[in-house]
């Protein structure tokens, strides 16, 4: 089964980090990806630029409305994601618990929904 692990972090926490702490956190994430890859559990993933760089679009009545920032103001912000290949939810949760920001923020684990095949 495929699961997406959505990593949420308070950006203020990152902003308050020293250069060394930020460097260490990144290295931990690199290590985590390496380990998941060697276990054959890592399918894809990316870290995201902060929400200050986010742009939200909506299309209404054929018109595209562009606004700044993320869709919803939340206490913790989406900071990245992992696409994992796990046997079941228990394994997915166990893998997600090793994602370094789990110690600082939270990681939401969601099963992937397969879209139906294209209508013929």
């Amino acid at each position, binding site marked *: *089964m495929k699961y997406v692990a959505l990593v949420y972090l308070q950006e203020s926490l990152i902003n308050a980090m020293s250069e060394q702490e930020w460097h260490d956190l990144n290295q931990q994430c690199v290590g985590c990806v390496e380990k998941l890859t060697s276990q054959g559990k890592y399918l894809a993933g990316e870290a995201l630029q902060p929400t200050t760089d986010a742009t939200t679009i909506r299309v209404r009545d054929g018109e595209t409305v562009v606004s700044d920032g993320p869709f919803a103001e939340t206490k913790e912000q989406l900071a990245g994601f992992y696409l994992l290949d796990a*046997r*079941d*939810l*228990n394994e997915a*949760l*166990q893998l997600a618990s090793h994602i370094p920001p789990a110690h600082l923020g939270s990681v939401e684990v*969601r*099963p992937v*929904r397969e879209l139906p095949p294209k209508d013929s």
Partner: protein
Amino acid sequence: MPVPSLLDNLYRTRSRRVLATLIRLLGDFELAEESMQEAFAAALQQWPAQGIPDNPTAWLISTGRHKGIDQIRRRQTANQHMQQQIELGEIPAHAFDDSSVDDDQLRLIFTCCHPSLAIETRLALTLREMCGLTTEQVARGLLQQPATVAQRIVRAKRKIRDAAIPYEVPEGKALAERLHSVLRVVYLVFNEGYSSSEGQAVTNVSLADEAIRLGRLLSSLLPQAEVYGLLALMLLQDSRRAARQCPDGDLITLEQQDRSLWDRRKIQEGLHCLDTAMQLPHPRLYSVQAAIAAEHARAASAGETDWHEIVELYDVLIRLDPSPVIALNRAVAVAMRDGPEVGLTLLAQLANAPELRNYYLYHAARADLCRRAGHTNTAREAYQQAITLTRQEPERRLLQRRLSSLQG
């Protein structure tokens, strides 16, 4: 025994085991439930003519499984996920022996109590699937609308399937954490039965019984200290059931209960479970709480309660769980040992804990201690506050009586 009453009996005692195994074999809660019903219906038809099988449970499982597989075959469009998981061939009879069926019961309770389900859902699902209560009964027990409970259960089953919550007993380090979640659900079921949090009746007899039954089952399947500790705690608390309430529904405090009404058999069993818990590795919160309940059970009268021992047990408890609610209970025990003024000093230190500010028992305890210390005005205020905060009618009446006795 005629077949219909035998089947009634089997349904009561064995249907949960049959269901637990069918869920594993068929990989689907809903289908397992339907297939189990069909298996019982088939037994009612076939057994009078063909005779009762040597191992009725295995017969029901095997028949249920075939019914389930037929159903899957009929659903030509059954989703791929299910087809992959189900072995459609024959399964040897020993696959249904007692130990594998026991394992399935554990798998079922660990699935029903999975922490990825909301706590209310875990309660409803456990009562429905493990205890075999109907949705109506679950709703009545939990004081919720049947439609709400039904919806919770449907959503839970969908999540179990779509998020692939596995049907397994966790191992290693995860077992301890997950067991905690299971025990919490069992104790919540018990407490829902012991004192329904709203409304008139304080004791909803059947839920307390269900929780104790679950506790007994768990202790036989997973003999760990805290499992026995929780069972002991429930038995010892439940032993006072008949003494807790007047016939008119008014509450009677521990101090004033007629101890001859306490159920000696439950106390004996509870004390025995507590001994077992204390001999196993890592007795923790439930075992220590049971040890406190045991001190009350052993005291022939309220005056003979060993408050020194109880305070020491609270000291252990608060090291394991330094929460304000436990500190509150400890303060009350200290007041019994050292007098109300000492207790009031401890309560004053807890006054700012956010968990206690709107907790009626905090204000009720403060009121009782003020009353005993002769601070009538403060006691009156604290009773008023407790009365405003309690949602339980019998509790409200008890507090009201206390308040009236002050004003009299």
